[in-house]
């Protein structure tokens, strides 16, 4: 049950590499919490999901790297190979000589069609090597040119070529005070196109991750690498093998399918957010103890207050407003303060999860799901319908 990762653009490639790093480290880590047999089956499941065995000694990541500039890709490849525990396939990358200049239309309408065949060939080869294709996981940023424009195009091609596969797009929300001037346009265009071809969009906001780094991880000089590592850690916690809701003696053979089925079956509501606790630097792990009730209480508080971290939760809890406001052109404006999520999926990892009481429903399983039908979901969709006319004129670039 394998997931093929497509890393797009500078951001996508860097994050993707950190994700594989995190997964690999988790696989090799020994914490002696479970029996040996369970460890082994976990390791096997994890390996099958993200890597494949080749003649070389180290497992090869199931990934396709795409970028318009050669610099980032070669860096990514070399860092991975140097780690010694895993590497990328030398042929599974595609790059050109010139960049996209942060121009969405350049990526979507120019580079996309030109290189469609080459990229799709790589993806097809990767997909064929899977015994069972679980779906595609694309990583991209919304602000730049390659990730956003080319990414949207590639997602559409993926959907055309694999109509029955699950596609999960991971998008990085740019900083509010971003470095790219046209990032708002890029973001809106990307999102609207992705909405049509993809099954689910998982959003990570740079601002939030930055705050996590600063406050929780106590990092003084936050580099992109730190940000990426936090993101990778969060992603890892979702995609690592876990038992299914029907209870548990085997790891889920259909992670993307399970995820999508419980969270995004409705065609209009495709946005996903991720909340992860605890988040702390590696070194303080040894000094802290956790208990399930405490962790869950924090998690619930975070959900209700729509916060991304355990600390600094804004406790002005207000019910959602009955109407919706047409937001300004700055799309990162989300004035919701109540848990208006449509569905929640909780993934628990660690010892003694059998006795965890999740409150509303008591189920001694690893994955627990309760669904609420929110009165409204993110303001975002409304901004779509309002801005669609604007979007159509840009696509004619």
């Amino acid at each position, binding site marked *: 049950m394998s997931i093929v990762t497509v890393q797009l653009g500078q951001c996508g490639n860097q994050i993707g590499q950190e994700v594989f790093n995190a997964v690999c480290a988790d696989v090799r880590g020994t914490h002696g919490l479970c029996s040996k047999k369970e460890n082994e089956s976990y390791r096997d499941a994890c390996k099958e999901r993200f890597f494949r065995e080749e003649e070389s000694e180290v497992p090869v990541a199931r990934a396709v790297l795409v970028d318009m500039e050669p610099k980032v890709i070669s860096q990514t490849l070399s860092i991975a190979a140097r780690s010694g525990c895993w590497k990328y396939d030398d042929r599974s990358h595609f790059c050109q000589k010139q960049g996209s200049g942060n121009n969405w239309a350049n990526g979507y309408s120019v580079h996309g069609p030109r290189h469609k065949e080459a990229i799709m060939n790589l993806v097809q080869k990767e997909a064929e090597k899977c015994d069972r*294709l679980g779906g595609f996981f694309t990583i991209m940023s919304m602000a730049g040119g390659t990730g956003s424009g080319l990414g949207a195009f590639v997602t559409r091609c993926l959907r055309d070529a694999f109509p029955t596969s699950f596609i999960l797009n991971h998008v990085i929300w740019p900083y509010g005070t971003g470095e790219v001037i046209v990032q708002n346009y890029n973001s809106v265009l990307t999102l609207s196109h992705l909405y049509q071809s993809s099954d689910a969009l998982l959003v990570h906001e740079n601002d939030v991750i930055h705050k996590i780094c600063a406050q929780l991880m106590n990092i003084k000089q936050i580099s992109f690498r730190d940000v990426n590592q936090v993101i990778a850690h969060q992603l890892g916690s979702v995609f690592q093998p876990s038992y299914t809701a029907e209870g548990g003696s085997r790891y889920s053979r259909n992670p993307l*399918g399970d995820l999508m089925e419980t969270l995004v079956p409705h065609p209009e509501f495709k946005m996903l957010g991720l909340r992860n606790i605890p988040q702390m630097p590696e070194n303080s792990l040894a000094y802290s103890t956790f208990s399930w009730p405490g962790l869950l209480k924090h998690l619930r508080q975070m959900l209700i207050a729509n916060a991304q971290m355990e600390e600094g939760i804004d406790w002005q809890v207000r019910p959602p407003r009955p109407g919706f406001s047409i937001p300004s052109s700055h799309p990162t404006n989300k004035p919701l303060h109540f848990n208006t999520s449509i569905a929640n999926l909780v993934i628990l990892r660690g010892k003694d999860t059998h006795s965890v009481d999740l409150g509303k429903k008591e189920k001694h399983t690893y994955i627990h799901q309760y669904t609420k039908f929110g009165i409204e979901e993110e303001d975002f969709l409304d901004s779509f319908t309002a801005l669609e006319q604007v979007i159509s004129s840009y696509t004619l670039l």
Partner: protein
Amino acid sequence: MRPVRACRGGKRRSAMRRQPREQQQSGRVLPGAVGALCRALPSRARPAPDTLRRARFDRPQASLDFWRLLYALLKQIHGGKWAESDAIGNQIRFVKSTLWYHGYGRPELYRLPSDGSAGSRELLLAFSWLLHRLSLLEQLLARNRVKTGDEASVCTCEDDLPNSQKGPTEIAPEYGPEDRVDVRYLQWLNGRLRFQWRSLHAQHQEQCKLLYKIHLFTSGSHMDKTLGHFSVTETDLIRQPGNYKQLLQLLESETMQLEAFLEWKQREPVYWQWMETVLDNMAEEGNPCESQDAHVERSGLPEVTSCCPWADSLTEHIGRLSRDLMTLRDQLQKLVMHRKAAWCEKVKTRKEELQKEGFPATARKIQESVELKLQDLTCLCAPRKNRAHGSCRLVLRSEHPVSKSGWGRSVSQEPVPAASAAEVIRELQMREASLGRELKQLREECRQRLDQIAEGLDGVICVSP
């Protein structure tokens, strides 16, 4: 094989004439036949021969056993799981509704009490009717075979019972305005269904890949040269040799059943003769009661159909279909006449036009579109050739990619001839293409209807996907 006649005003036969012969022959041969029959039934639903004998004399003690036997057999046929702990009332209701579904028309059975206290002779009759009518034994044997793991199910049949022609009254919702279901909830459920279908699809693909790997890696190792490779069960046995005992047991019991079946086939005529005597006895006894119960019969039957909803809608469908057929035929005749006349006119004018324009390009276009339309028509009207249906065993051949040798679930004396997977794939692709065209057409119609509705509403712009 002599058919069992339903006994409605059947002819009276003098039973006296038969008895001496019966006593001579059946004394020796009948127990053997009944014994073979019982042994040929699957182990979970195997009656003692004594039960049948007691039922012939209408002993009440045999009724309960017979109800349970019929329940077990019919549940197996209909692919359901059953628990022996099901209440006898439910079991009886199930048996009655299934018999009704299959067309058993003897009212005395439906009037039997629901506590299973009487009527074993009626049940014996029903059992024999099922034996003959449904080819019960053959079906059960086919269903309970030891699986090779290489099975694939094939179905190139047309869809039956299209339910797209429901009248407007049936679409009227049963919910009042308070109970209205949120359309978003329906979309949610639809989405879940779609995703589950996708997961199923991925699972199927995985199974195919792995099966191919097994066949490829074990090719050349099988003793049977026509197959050439191991099946999944055999491969599993190699990996886990400890399971051989279980497999052996299963094979032995299947062999025993098959042998009993062969024996039964030889001795069958005796059994049917015996059943004729049963029928004759019942005809003699049953006639007086028939006339006065005629009106009760009509009131009794609805109670049965209420627990058999699919039979209910079937009869409705049949009635409606036959009415529709008549009206359609009349309409068609009228249409054909009109069309012919209009067409002749068109042809004349077109001929004149064409003689002025260039001919080859337009002729080609016309030919293509006509071929497309004809393709659909011929597919629909073609006489039913042997639609492959049932499960087949997949066999990997080196010359052709994959071929199949199959024995379907339908009762045929010779096995279904081998079909190559490429052929079946082609057939299915044609069917997919024609369904795709039908879908496109339906979508166009929907779009036009939506546009019409939207025109009627003020201030509404309909943006179609």
